[in-house]
């Protein structure tokens, strides 16, 4: 294939990518925010390493290519504990990288600085391998012998340009870059399809490799599980390593956390992304075997291209573009992420001191270029000696050094900054010693001592005389164990710092600062957000906003100028809690006091009522007592009274005495009611009862000369005889007292109730008194004032109602509930 053709294809493809990114920023925005695009963007994890290197590894080392993809699968299963939590934190504090998190958690500026620096250095091999892959592919397909370097450099510059164009539009990197995300997702699709198609085409063209492979003994290790304890250890280590890398790689943090639009997308990505990994790995083994069978002399990393070429030039181009996809996606996102690290943690404090913060965006762009050039440099220095996967794994181990500090920081309150720093330093040192430097030594850029070590026990690739482990597994275990031990150990020995002092400030001053650093748009946004927020919260918001763009350390420094010390958050919390408790207590106290006052009022009212009753009763008693006494005395003092007068007086005496006894009865009945004596229910014939009442009232009727007219139905019910009788007598006496000539008594059935009606043809109850007629102590015209009130209480206690009917005269009626007659077939 002509190199020109390849170059054209390359540029066209990059141009297409450019368009896709533009589309994502414009009308394709909604696409870019879908959960599927999110899941696909995570697939930036699969780089040229996956596309070319996996086949290379599978062809030489068998199944050990696979754990790299099992690790992320395992980590995503834990997303509710890991990514979910991260998303929350990131949202809250505008985190743009793990370095931001470490600074947030441990608060020590050197930690962020160190992390950023280490990550840049540690990722150079990984970036370099992408450049190598593209260069290699180009050269292979074009058949040229030109040095790799010639192609790698322009590629490097082109990719840097792409990253600058789509990743650094705005200063605040915590804002979304939909175009970038869409482009990355697009590239994920391209590489998946490309590899699957190449695999399929190769199988079609060259047939099933498995039967042939199984015949050859040298192929056996490729078809069997890894052997021995060291093989198993390597398997497990690689899985864990890649899981950690998936979590801590800057580009993965960027696409999964920073670019996340909706936390719920995680649920889909948790299975969709590993599915992608599974699919893209399906062709690997067949391609590896075919490669070994047909191109035994070729560099195994090139098998994919060689086989594609066998199947046809179109497929070769496809394979090339697939590899380019894989490499460019990684480079763009990784360099962007690294540039954010560099600008926010390395450059920003320096710029602040130089008062050149305004040019931060420019510096970020420059750092993309810088990082890419450094990757190119590494590629030149160490790229030859290693297979692609080997280079990638070195970076994996570097990135994994963040794990102890970060994970312990997330879940253990006892982790201190000293521990984190110690662990990180220890891990870095060991990484450098066991992996990074030996790699450079192997390429000839460092003296051989870095491969051998000063002492057999300090052999870089086999510390303490360990043999049999491959360098990566060994380096991983050594560095991470030391890292973990130091983090834990030093944390246990150092005390947790008091919580950082909060700052508090005025919204006006804060937004002015934000305007100065981030521009007028950000200032407006902040003013809207911080409306009405108390000082400490506004300051925290401002800090988060700034931290996203200039790095947390600088943000804190900037804030110092416009805020003042706020009482320690913990103290404020304490105070707030205490005051809340005090207020709650005071409220409870107030409630209790109010209840007490009400109860007191009720008691007083009852007492007063009792007093009133006593007063009323004694008052009522006095009049008949007076007349009884007077009359009795007269009768005694005048024995020779004329017969007529004598009869008159004795009659009066008898009447008043009766009145007295009636009053006493009523008071006693009232007292009984108050005491709440229980009802005695028995089956009663109401008609019989009415007749009894009539009999008792007869003397009064005769005396008054009032005729009693009755109309009684036969009604049976379950009730208290005495009480009903009392009510009837009450009403009858009232009626008789007021009647002119007639009193009517009616008893009938009304629906579910028995209805009694007592009517007299007297003057009736005046309109004004009607509503009060059943209230106690409303005596008028010779009553006790208690009679009707008592009647009401009695009737109500029996479950009925008593009322004064409207109209002329006085017509009192009351009801009694009827028991449902069980014998009645129709029901009540």
């Amino acid at each position, binding site marked *: 294939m002509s190199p020109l053709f390849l170059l054209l294809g390359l540029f066209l493809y990059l141009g297409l990518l450019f368009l896709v990114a533009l589309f994502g920023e414009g009308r394709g925005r909604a696409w870019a925010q879908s959960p599927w695009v999110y899941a696909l963007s995570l697939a930036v994890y699969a780089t040229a390493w996956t596309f070319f290197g996996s086949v290379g590894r599978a062809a030489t080392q068998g199944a050990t290519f*696979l754990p790299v993809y099992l690790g992320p699968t395992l980590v995503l299963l834990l997303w509710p504990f890991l990514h979910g939590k991260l998303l929350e934190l990131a949202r809250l504090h505008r985190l743009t990288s793990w370095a931001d998190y470490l600074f947030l958690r441990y608060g020590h500026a050197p930690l962020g600085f160190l992390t950023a620096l280490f990550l840049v250095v540690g990722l150079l091999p990984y970036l370099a391998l992408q450049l190598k892959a593209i260069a290699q592919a180009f050269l292979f397909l074009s058949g040229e012998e030109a040095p790799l370097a010639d192609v790698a450099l322009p590629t490097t510059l082109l990719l840097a340009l792409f990253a600058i164009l789509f990743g650094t539009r705005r200063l605040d990197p915590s804002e979304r870059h939909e175009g970038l995300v869409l482009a990355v997702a697009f590239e994920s699709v391209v590489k998946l399809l490309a590899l699957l198609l190449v695999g399929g085409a190769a199988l079609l063209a060259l047939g099933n490799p498995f039967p042939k492979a199984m015949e050859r003994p040298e192929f056996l290790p490729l078809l*069997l*599980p890894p052997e021995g304890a060291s093989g198993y250890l390597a398997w497990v280590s690689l899985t864990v390593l890649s899981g950690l890398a998936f979590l801590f790689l800057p580009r993965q943090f960027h696409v999964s956390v920073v670019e996340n639009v909706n936390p719920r997308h995680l649920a889909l990505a948790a*299975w969709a992304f590993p599915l992608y990994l599974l699919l893209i790995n399906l062709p690997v083994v067949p391609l590896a075997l075919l490669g070994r069978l047909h191109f035994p002399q070729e560099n195994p990393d090139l098998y994919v291209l060689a086989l594609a070429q066998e199947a046809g030039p179109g497929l070769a181009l496809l394979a090339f573009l697939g590899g380019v996809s894989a490499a460019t996606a990684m480079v763009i996102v990784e360099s962007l992420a690294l540039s954010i690290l560099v600008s926010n943690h390395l450059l920003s404090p320096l710029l602040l001191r130089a008062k050149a913060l305004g040019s931060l965006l420019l510096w970020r762009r420059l750092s993309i270029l810088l990082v890419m050039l450094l990757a190119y440099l590494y590629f030149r220095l160490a790229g030859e000696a290693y297979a692609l996967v080997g280079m990638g794994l070195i970076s994996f181990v570097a990135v994994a050094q963040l794990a102890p500090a970060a994970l312990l920081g997330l879940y253990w309150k006892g982790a201190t900054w000293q521990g984190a720093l110690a662990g990180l330093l220890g891990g870095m040192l060991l990484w450098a010693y066991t992996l990074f430097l030996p790699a450079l030594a192997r390429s000839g850029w460092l003296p051989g001592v870095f491969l051998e070590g000063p002492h057999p026990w300090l052999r870089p690739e086999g510390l303490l005389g360990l043999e049999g482990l491959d360098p990566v597994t060994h380096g991983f275990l050594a560095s991470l164990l030391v890292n973990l031990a130091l983090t834990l150990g030093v944390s246990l020995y150092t005390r947790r710092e008091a919580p950082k002092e909060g700052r508090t400030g005025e919204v006006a001053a804060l937004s002015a600062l934000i305007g100065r650093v981030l521009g007028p748009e950000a200032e407006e946004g902040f003013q809207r957000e911080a409306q009405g927020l108390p000082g400490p919260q506004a300051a925290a918001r401002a800090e988060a906003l700034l931290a996203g763009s200039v790095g947390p350390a600088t943000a804190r420094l900037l804030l110092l100028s416009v805020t003042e010390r706020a009482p320690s958050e913990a103290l404020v919390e304490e105070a707030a809690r205490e005051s809340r408790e005090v207020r709650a207590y005071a409220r409870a106290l107030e409630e209790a006091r109010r209840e007490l006052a009400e109860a007191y009022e009720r008691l007083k009212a009852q007492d007063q009522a009792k007093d009133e009753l006593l007063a009323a009763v004694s008052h009522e008693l006095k009049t008949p007592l007076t007349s009884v006494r007077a009359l009795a005395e007269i009768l005694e003092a005048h024995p020779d009274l004329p017969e007529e007068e004598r009869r008159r007086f004795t009659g009066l005496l008898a009447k008043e005495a009766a009145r007295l006894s009636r009053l006493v009865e009523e008071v006693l009945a009232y007292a009984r009611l108050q005491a709440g004596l229980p009802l005695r229910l028995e089956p009663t014939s109401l008609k019989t009862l009415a007749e009894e009442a009539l009999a008792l009232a007869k003397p009064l009727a005769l005396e008054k000369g009032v005729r009693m007219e009755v109309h009684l139905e036969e009604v049976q019910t379950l009730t208290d005889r005495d009480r009903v009788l009392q009510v009837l007598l009450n009403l009858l006496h009232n009626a008789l007292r007021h009647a002119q000539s007639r009193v009517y008594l009616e008893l009938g059935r009304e629906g579910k109730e028995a209805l009694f009606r007592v009517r007299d043809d007297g003057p009736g109850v005046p309109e004004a008194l009607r509503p009060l007629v059943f209230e106690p102590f409303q005596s008028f015209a010779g009553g006790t004032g208690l009679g009707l009130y008592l009647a009401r209480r009695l009737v109500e206690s029996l479950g009925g109602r008593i009322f004064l009917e409207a109209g002329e005269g006085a017509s009192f009626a009351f009801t009694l509930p009827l028991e449902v007659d069980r014998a009645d077939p129709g029901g009540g």
Partner: protein
Amino acid sequence: MKEKAFTLFLLALFLFFLPLALFPLSPLGPLGLPPVYLYLFGAWGLVLLLSYLLFRKP
């Protein structure tokens, strides 16, 4: 759901870390494919299926 996720994680861990070297596997297996790959991809697929079922509607 968190408990189920963790249980699935443990299951996957067990499946992926099974010391396959201890099993008498031959290069030739069903469908003419090496059993080690059949097992790995099969277990992986199973774990994904379970996680799909689990995380479908959080």
